[in-house]
């Protein structure tokens, strides 16, 4: 047992080192695009949060932006009302996201299959309408603007080029990623994977299903909420698009592109999707839609496991080849 756990440990340490290296490389290579890169990090948190409930628990959702938006608006409203310390704002986002996750889980887990999916969409639309209506607090369709965040730890001001915001976001992402690595490999994470495959078996093992899934919704909400808060802090604006069906659907596409049920896949999918989007939609936003559509069809037909699934398949066949030779 120790040999294999050691190897897994080593793999995770290398993986996290690679994430940090890639993040810092982005900082040096694209100093003019740090705002975009910070948006990528915020989106990555959202995609990770979907992976937790869709990839690890098997609950499909097209409404995850409600949790992201809950975090964004909570942090934004707190910020205009005088709480400007960035770490506190992230925590506020996490709390708001987990409360929204609790609510969303309670509602969604009542249904299964299509009804569940429809509930997720209805919830995000309801959040969207609510945020639009409560314009006294949210700024409605104009968005909540004018967020003035204090310097991080009282020392690092959020500068015009977004350097502080980016590094802050990167640190947050790495921290969350490490915690999630623990979560998905804990007994609880195992239980979730079991539920995804066969809830009846899990019940026959003497474990309830609903509280386990609900707990994952809360964790997922915290992650998405932090993503929302990070987006709010870095762009200093919270718009209605942060609680939209479109954002939810796009984030799901990113996850599927990267590979469901793999935390690395969630990151890779986000980076590739948003990178492409940046270049292609600059040319013509409608070509972008056609491309995403074609991409989705291609993933479903050719690579159901996403990019990380493809990698696994290649490495598995490599192993088999080696074993065959030996």
């Amino acid at each position, binding site marked *: *047992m120790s040999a*294999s*756990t050691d190897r897994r440990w080593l793999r995770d340490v290398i993986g996290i080192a690679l994430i940090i290296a890639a993040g810092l490389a982005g900082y040096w290579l694209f100093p003019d695009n740090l705002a975009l890169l910070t948006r990528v990090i915020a989106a990555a948190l959202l995609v990770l949060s979907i992976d937790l409930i869709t990839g690890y628990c098997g609950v499909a959702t097209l409404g995850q932006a409600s949790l992201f938006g809950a975090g964004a608006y909570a942090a934004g409203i707190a910020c205009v009302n005088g709480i400007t310390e960035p770490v506190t704002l992230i925590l506020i986002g996490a709390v708001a996201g987990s409360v929204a996750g609790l609510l969303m889980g309670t509602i969604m887990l009542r249904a299964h299959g299509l009804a569940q999916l429809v509930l997720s969409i209805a919830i995000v639309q309801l959040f969207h309408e609510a945020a639009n209506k409560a314009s006294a607090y949210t700024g409605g369709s104009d968005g909540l603007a004018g967020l003035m965040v204090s310097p991080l730890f009282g020392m690092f001001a959020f500068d015009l080029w977004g350097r502080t915001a980016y590094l802050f976001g990167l640190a947050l992402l790495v921290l969350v990623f490490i*915690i999630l690595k*623990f*979560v998905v*490999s*804990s*007994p*609880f*994470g*195992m*239980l979730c*994977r*079991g539920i995804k*495959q*066969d809830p*009846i*078996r899990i*019940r*026959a*093992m*003497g*474990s*309830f299903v609903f*509280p*386990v899934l609900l*707990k994952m919704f809360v*964790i997922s909400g915290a992650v998405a909420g932090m993503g929302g808060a990070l987006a709010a802090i870095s762009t200093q604006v919270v718009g209605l698009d942060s609680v939209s069906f479109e954002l939810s659907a796009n984030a799901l596409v990113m996850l599927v592109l990267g590979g469901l049920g793999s935390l690395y896949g969630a990151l890779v999918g986000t980076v590739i999707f948003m990178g492409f989007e940046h270049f292609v939609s600059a040319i013509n936003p409608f070509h972008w839609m056609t491309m995403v559509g074609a991409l989705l069809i291609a993933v479903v037909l050719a690579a159901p496991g996403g990019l990380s699934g493809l990698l696994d398949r290649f490495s598995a066949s490599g192993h088999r080849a080696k074993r065959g030779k030996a």
Partner: protein
Amino acid sequence: MSDLFRVEGLTKNFGGLAVSRNISLSMPAGERLALIGPNGAGKTTFVNLVTGQIHPSAGRVVLNGEDVTKLGAVRRVRKGLVRTFQVTRLFSQMTPEEHVTLTVLQREGKANRILSRFTGHSEVVGEVESILSTLGLLDVARRRVGEIAYGQQRLLEIGIALALRPKVLLLDEPAAGVPSSDTPRIEQALERLPPSLAVLMIEHDMDLVFRFAKRVVVLAAGEIIFEGLPSEVAANEKVREAYLGNYAHARRIA
């Protein structure tokens, strides 16, 4: 009242069709009971009723003097009423070791921990190893379940059940689908079940039934038509009729 486990008048109707009618039986601790009957007799329905996957139209299930009829499947498992499945329900991507570890952790109330490690709880490791070694599954303990032989998967089903430390164990055709060369291993595992455990086994393999069971109950068309020693079964007129005649069919139409 000394019975560990008892069902009284258990009845289940689906629409107008009675799939279980007025089934009563009781088991003391250490019982080895076989439940047999022709296809469609309602054996698996009976297991589902007893373990709470479906709820009865009438009747009671009593465990240790406590009425558990109103409890859901999970609570019954936690009280010691455990089943295996006729068709294995295992997680193809997990290893046998992980299956049993998860079950033991669940029993200990530790399966919901978020930040503790899955492996390496020393007290759990010992128990998991002892269960796997009793069943002869140590060599495949770290292979994915999808890659191990079906007979080994059936053994793992039993292993998961044992990890729950049951008081009453319902085995739904433990040898179903297993090549005959592997049947002895299943039988060996059944012989090694804890002596105080009350076991109810559904099985079609009559040799296995006769070697394992001290008592046999025959179910036909949702009803108990015989209860007695294994040696008496074959001679019973009703049983012969149920298996050879059209008994089950005739009763269902009526």
